[in-house]
């Protein structure tokens, strides 16, 4: 029993699964049975996990216990400092938390964990802090260029502020860093569509479909991308001469027509698989709604 919960906790920790209820339940059991000694060096990362999980579900007294144990073992560790900061956040005292992080960053200005927490608190403060958030976050990604989370967050903020141009540029960096993730590409495509760069959006939607090499079973990103292709192709077909500032070359009208047709087939196939057979209720309405 004890070893299996150790293993379970370790897997959750490694994957970053957010199952705080279960973590606390298992963790309390471990603490009561003296499992800390059995874990050896793993005990400290377990305590960190338990502290975070118990703050997540509001059992602050348990979190305090964990943090105390940890700070006894590692006095002055930035990781424990970070936990203490989150503990302040958990009490819903953003002002104090900000102050705490700022002081901690004075000690060690380049600690990414503390810096990210600070930005997260700023972001949670809403629109009055938005300028400061963006400033800090730009500085952060400028320093830690490879942090994809930071870039995604920045793209999100820009999108929230309706500055889709900047959001698109930020997502370009995300694509450079993680070009293998179809969801990032999809997001890039959708943002491009929102900006109004339809040819670019069409190309990028197609790229998402191109990335999916699973035969038969389409990923969720691919399904959504087919919708994007349909939208973009239909729009380009119906307004072929609309002025566009896009730098992306347009596929020929013939290809556009084929793409439009293909997208319609794919979408119909997704929602009304042919294997069902016979007349399916709603299929005609769907096809009619998709249009040509």
């Amino acid at each position, binding site marked *: 029993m004890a070893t299996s919960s150790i293993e379970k906790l370790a897997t959750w920790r490694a994957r970053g699964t957010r199952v705080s209820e279960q973590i606390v339940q298992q963790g309390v059991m471990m603490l009561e049975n003296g499992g800390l000694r059995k874990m050896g060096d793993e005990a400290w990362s377990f305590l960190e996990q338990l502290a975070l999980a118990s703050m997540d579900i509001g059992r602050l007294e348990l979190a305090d216990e964990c943090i105390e144990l940890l700070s006894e073992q590692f006095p002055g560790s930035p990781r424990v400092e970070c936990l203490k900061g989150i503990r302040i956040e958990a009490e819903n005292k953003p002002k104090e938390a900000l102050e705490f992080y700022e002081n901690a960053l004075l000690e060690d200005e380049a600690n990414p964990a503390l810096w990210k927490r600070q930005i997260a608190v700023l972001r949670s403060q809403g629109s009055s802090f938005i300028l400061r958030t963006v400033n800090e976050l730009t500085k952060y990604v400028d320093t830690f260029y490879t942090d994809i989370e930071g870039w995604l967050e920045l793209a999100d903020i820009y999108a929230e502020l309706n500055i889709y141009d900047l959001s698109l540029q930020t997502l*370009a960096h995300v694509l450079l*860093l993680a070009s293998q993730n179809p969801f990032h590409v999809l997001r890039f495509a959708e943002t491009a569509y929102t900006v109004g760069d339809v040819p670019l959006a069409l190309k990028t939607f*197609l790229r998402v479909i*191109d990335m999916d090499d699973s035969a038969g079973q389409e990923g969720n990103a691919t399904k959504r991308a087919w919708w994007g292709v349909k939208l973009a192709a239909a729009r380009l077909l119906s307004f072929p001469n609309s002025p566009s500032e896009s730098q992306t070359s347009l596929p020929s009208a013939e290809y556009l027509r084929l793409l439009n047709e293909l997208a319609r087939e794919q979408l119909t196939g997704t929602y009304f698989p042919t294997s069902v057979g016979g007349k399916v209720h709603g299929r005609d309405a769907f096809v009619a709604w998709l249009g040509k």
Partner: protein
Amino acid sequence: MSNSASSSLYLDPQIRDWVLFPITIVMTLVGILRHYVTILLTSSPKKLTRAAIREQHALLRSQILRSTASNSPIPPTFYKSISASLSHDFIAGTYLKDGPPKDEGNDGAPQPPLNPLTNPEQMEGMMDGMKKQMVMMIPQMVIMGWINFFFQGFVAIKLPFPLTLGFKSMLQRGVETQDMDVRWVSSLSWYFLNFFGLNGVYRLLLGNDNSADSSKDLASTSPFGGTRSQPQAPMQAQDYGKLFKAERDNLELAEGLYNWSAKNVELRILRKFGKIPPAKA
């Protein structure tokens, strides 16, 4: 005949108790001691400033951009603008830790590389490596002296399996006899066998990343060897200004290779779903 000659050699059990075991035990204990001394000596990793990290990551930016160039995920305009802004910043020295160089007129003249001994930060890193090196070297020298002094020429153990003559110089160091069977191991050779072989024991006792094993330090015998263990701290005086200038040329090269991965994607998709005939090979 030689068979009977070698089997007529008997080792005093006293040798086992007072030579073989002591050497092994002393070496194990010294290894464990060294592990803890190293932990004591290791200074906590130095804190870097934001500017220093930015400087280190700047090269990474252009490397990421360059490595994707031949099949880039981002469209041409985006690629060009990122590439151009990086080039511009590399020339202007925006990413340098101490800010852009001040004397613009003197830009072309090569600046002398910093002497690592004058920079206190790097000095500290070097001292760290040196200290660790000393902890490695001194006990080994002492043990070897001890064995040489007390047990020179001792035959300590007989291996339970036969070996070819080639192993003679490895197993009978310090015993200059032509005729003795290779299975007999001299005390000095026993020391070397332990020296290289105790790693497994240390791992069992101290965990995986212990610093007790001395044989792996043979690979990095320079006092600058600390570079590997602490890649974060800049040990060598790297002239980032020069690196950036070189990187700029690479960026320009990569721009020539640039190809958008979505360039002909509509053709690929239409072919994949059989809307247009496949490309001719």
